[in-house]
């Protein structure tokens, strides 16, 4: 069936080093530039509007041995920071010209300037994304920040990021996000037809390809998935929360599903589907995009949400996806996830929603203990 082939193509794509993807794209786009975005949210639209290729910089999982980066970052620092830096040391980002980081945490911030120091040939930008969602100055600030980013690209690469081209890119990414929202809704409705391992690969591939190509793949999937066979299994429905930056190993997602869970909501690739509705493409597109970062945002551990309780967004997710439980999956040493775990768990407890904590590292490769934990958890719920 074509769906399987499409997903197979996604699997191949994400097995390729980022640099190789950039190089291949450049063969058909002579003089083109590729810019990789560290999680969580980056305005891929601004990159695309300058005729560049936006990519996701998502660490190296278990694919590289740390030979340099672990002497730069201590043992108590998350793995994605180290492996992302290691990709640089091992030349696996050759072909990528720019990197974008933002203020998601202290580690990412330090990583950004350390990248710049060690690899001066990259154009590295660090975005300060607004944490004050209610200030009267926030929309202007965000618009200016995105313009600053654009100017940086223009100066470094001689590209042009115009308002009309940005408006077009916003429309393209709106379409992609709408398709992804569709896939999420589909998985909520029929999780037996689309596993999270598959959805993960689809999404990740969308961050490793030109958006036009990603959109057409998503269109194909949307057309063909409903006809896919899939018998419902005796599983609990869960929300996975905490894997918004460092990537969980596929093996972990597999184990979660095999041990008896349908993952019906998650915060994987949150930045690539950040907006709850379309970003307006009329008016000043810089302002529309910047304001949407604050005003149309999905709940995230990396953004302050005013007086909203941290648990509120999560509880809504649970209700909306008709989930039975939440599995917290913070990456080891990931402070935003670990801190938010506390109020989120308290909120779930107040609502009587069961939850389980499973920490992970991208390079983790045995999952037997996790499997046992999840099986026990699932059993306790199924046979309660």
């Amino acid at each position, binding site marked *: 069936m074509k769906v399987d082939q499409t997903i197979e193509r996604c699997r191949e794509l994400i097995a390729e080093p980022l640099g190789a993807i950039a190089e291949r794209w450049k063969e058909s786009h002579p003089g083109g530039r590729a810019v990789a975005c560290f999680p969580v949210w980056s305005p891929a639209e601004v990159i695309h509007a300058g005729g560049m290729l936006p990519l996701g910089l998502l660490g190296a999982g278990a694919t590289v041995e740390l030979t340099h980066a672990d002497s730069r970052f201590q043992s108590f620092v998350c793995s994605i920071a180290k492996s992302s830096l290691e990709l640089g040391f091992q030349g696996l980002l050759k072909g990528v010209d720019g990197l974008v980081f933002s203020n998601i945490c202290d580690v990412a911030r330090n990583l950004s300037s350390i990248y710049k120091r060690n690899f001066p040939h990259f154009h590295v930008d660090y975005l*300060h994304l607004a*944490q004050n969602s209610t200030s009267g100055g926030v929309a*202007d*600030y965000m618009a200016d920040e995105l313009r600053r980013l654009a100017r940086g690209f223009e100066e470094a690469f001689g590209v042009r990021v115009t308002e009309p081209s940005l408006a077009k890119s916003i429309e393209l990414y709106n379409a992609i996000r709408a398709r992804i929202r569709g896939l999420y809704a589909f998985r909520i409705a029929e999780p037996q037809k689309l596993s999270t391992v598959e959805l993960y690969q689809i999404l990740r591939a969308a961050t490793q390809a030109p958006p036009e190509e990603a959109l057409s793949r998503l269109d194909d999937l949307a057309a063909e998935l409903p006809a896919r066979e899939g018998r419902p299994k005796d599983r609990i429905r869960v929300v996975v929360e905490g894997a918004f930056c460092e990537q969980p190993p596929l093996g972990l997602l597999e184990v979660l599903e095999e041990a008896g869970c349908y993952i019906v909501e998650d915060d994987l690739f949150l930045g690539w589907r950040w907006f709850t509705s379309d970003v307006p493409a009329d008016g000043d597109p810089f302002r529309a995009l910047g304001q949407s970062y604050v005003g149309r945002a999905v709940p995230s551990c990396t953004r302050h949400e005013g007086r909203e309780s941290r648990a509120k967004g999560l509880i809504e997710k649970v209700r909306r996806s008709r989930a039975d439980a939440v599995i917290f999956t913070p990456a080891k*040493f990931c402070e935003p996830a670990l801190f938010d775990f*506390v109020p989120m768990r308290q909120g779930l407890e107040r609502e009587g929603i069961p939850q389980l904590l499973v920490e992970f590292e991208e390079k983790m490769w045995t999952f037997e203990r996790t499997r046992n934990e999840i099986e026990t958890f699932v059993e306790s719920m199924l046979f309660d």
Partner: protein
Amino acid sequence: MPAEVKERQYQGKVHQLSRDLMNAWMAQLARANETGEPTGAIMISGNCVELLRAFDIHPIFPEVTALQNAIRHQSLPLILKAEEVGYSSDSCADVKADMGLFLSGGMGPGTKMPYPTVTLCNYVGCNVYVKWFEHLAAATGSELFMLDVPFLRTSEPTAADVRYVVKQIEELIAVLERISKKKFDIDKLREILRYSVRAEEGYARSKDLCKGSPAPFDSYFDAINMMGPINVLRGTREAADFFDEAVKEFEGMVAEKVGPLSEERFRMVVEGPPPYPYYRSFRNLFTKWGAVAVASTYSTVGGIWEWGFRHDPARPLESIAEQMLTENLTNRSIVARYGQIKRYVEEWKADCLVIHSIKSCRLFSAGQGDMREYFTKELGVPTLLVESDLEDPRYYAEAQLRNRIDAFFESLEHKKLVAA
């Protein structure tokens, strides 16, 4: 090995004066609890305490409380209390000590530490601040204001950065007016800032005196005596007077050529916060080598005054914004910090760099291995990196630290002998 170096029997006033001032501040807080006067929780880094002061809102510094508890060996039970409710053993222990204080009833009515009326998150660099103050505001039911200060990611803050911060300060002022029921008086703020300037001047001058040999005080271990007045009490007449006294005392010491130790054998720059739970033991590991910190980055978390920045009473809001944006350590990149340290090494004529890496504090620590690479490989500055924690006593391994420190100074001593 040459004769052992001892800490000199220090007879000066600075230490006692600082302690008295900080005690008076704590007593004020305890009174505020009884009288119901408004209080505001605020962070140390690049803070804008002057704004609270302009409304007579008593500042609470949860970081200072957490560190005071650590130095009194009271942090572990608080940390454990927080871990019981789900805080990870891997996250910043300052937050845990503070939330642990709340959870164990050490904060709020009937205690010395009042709940804040307003929780003012001056988000200056550290992302953990956002989490911390979200939790604190939720726990205490206080009003949260998120003062979002864009990180210094260009050589100068952009015009948009300054506008955004000033706008938020104006919005904050409206909140503080409501909470304190007092009208904003810009002249009062100007007067407060004039006191700030005097304190900044004195702190900068004190640090400058450490260029002398011997340095009159240890700019890492003794600097905490000044960090209270400069960060917590800045904007008061008392803090300004304190620094006048401090400068007088240090100038006298320079004239007499006396420093904190019986002999200054090594001049070091220290990076990273100290291990508060083992402050004294850690200090002793350096004292015996005659190693004195002539400059430190930690002493600049609240503000970098040694390069000349001062608040400007003529442009009160703008200069507060500028200080928050650029003139403090935490809102600058780690690589910009390399530049700061390099200047210290050169201008303060240091022999070495000691990096104290803090597990809790990724703001300071994440990437310090790269810093070591830069200083050893690119600049040829002898650099030692040791690890423990600023708040959590479980991460302090004295024997290991001693071995590393001894080996480092032995080799420095050897180099000195060879060079001579």
